[in-house]
């Protein structure tokens, strides 16, 4: 692993750690009154704060997950480095696109 990929993996981990902690807190708080669409959307709809929070989450997780996946398929899958990098880029783009779409859906709801 190049030192730049290593740095990116650790940097995104450092960003994700507090975000995941807050996300877990929200999950545990929210599940006590039972999960429902209204409850979730009531919290997130129209909130710039949650949009930025989960938007940042989606960007960081796309990079972190893709770099991790690349390492796993290199070590356990025996793929050539070029192919592993291509798979990782595909994973990053899928995670990023679906992630940002999900954040858009629960915060802006398709309109502004």
């Amino acid at each position: 692993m190049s030192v730049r990929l290593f740095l990116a993996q650790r940097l995104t981990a450092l960003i994700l750690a507090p975000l995941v902690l807050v996300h877990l807190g929200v999950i545990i708080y929210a599940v006590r009154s039972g999960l429902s669409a209204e409850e979730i959307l009531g919290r997130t709809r129209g909130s710039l704060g949650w949009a930025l929070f989960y938007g940042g989450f989606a960007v960081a997780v796309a990079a972190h997950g893709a770099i991790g996946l690349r390492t796993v398929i290199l070590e356990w899958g025996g793929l050539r480095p070029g192919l592993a990098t291509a798979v990782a880029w595909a994973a990053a783009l899928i995670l990023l696109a679906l992630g940002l779409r999900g954040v858009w859906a629960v915060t802006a709801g398709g309109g502004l």
Partner: protein
Amino acid sequence: MTALDELEIRVWRGAADGHYQVFRAPRRANQTVLDVVSWIQREADPSLSYRFACRVGVCGSCAMTVNGKPRWTCRTHITKVAKDGRLTIAPLRNLPVIRDLACDMAPFFEKWRRARGRFEAAISRDDPLVPISPDSLERRAADAAVECINCAVCHAACDVVGWRPDYLGPAALNRAWVAWNDLRDRDRSAVLRAANAGAGCGNCHSHQSCAEHCPVEINPTRSIAGLKRAGLLALLRGSL
């Protein structure tokens, strides 16, 4: 069950495509794994190939896989590893097998070279000695890692070496950590660059199998963590 006065030993024979051969050897009150291998070679099959020199845990040449774990055989007592009298002895993992229990150590030492583990002096022997305080951070870091006996037990224990054969591995990187902390070296940043290259310390997942098995209780994971830290600091400062 083996008899109380006897050991049953499966010994690897041949190269990578070899097989296990079963031997029986007398069990003694005070006996090391190397004693048993030597007994087989002297009394049962003189064609058995293995490597040893000092027999007292200094030279690092007698490491083998004993009941699935890499160990220095000269200081591993039978009572510790084979309570039921059964032993399986194989060559070290992650190195090409020459024959029987002897591995080709060339790739192992080639990695030391690639990790820039060799000391390069900044001054000649005619210059006065450079004073290094025994209390300095660098000296203490080097002290904790310098007593490696080059036995390759950590290299054999490391999963990442097995998965990515070009990975420099715990022994070479531990050596690089010593070189990085040696203030007398003429180009320490070259050490850091070599250790942080694509096959270097960034591949370590801190399983700590190296530290778990090191016979002289060095902790290569700790040394590698030091190289990661120093490498990232240098990268952020633009000096890597």
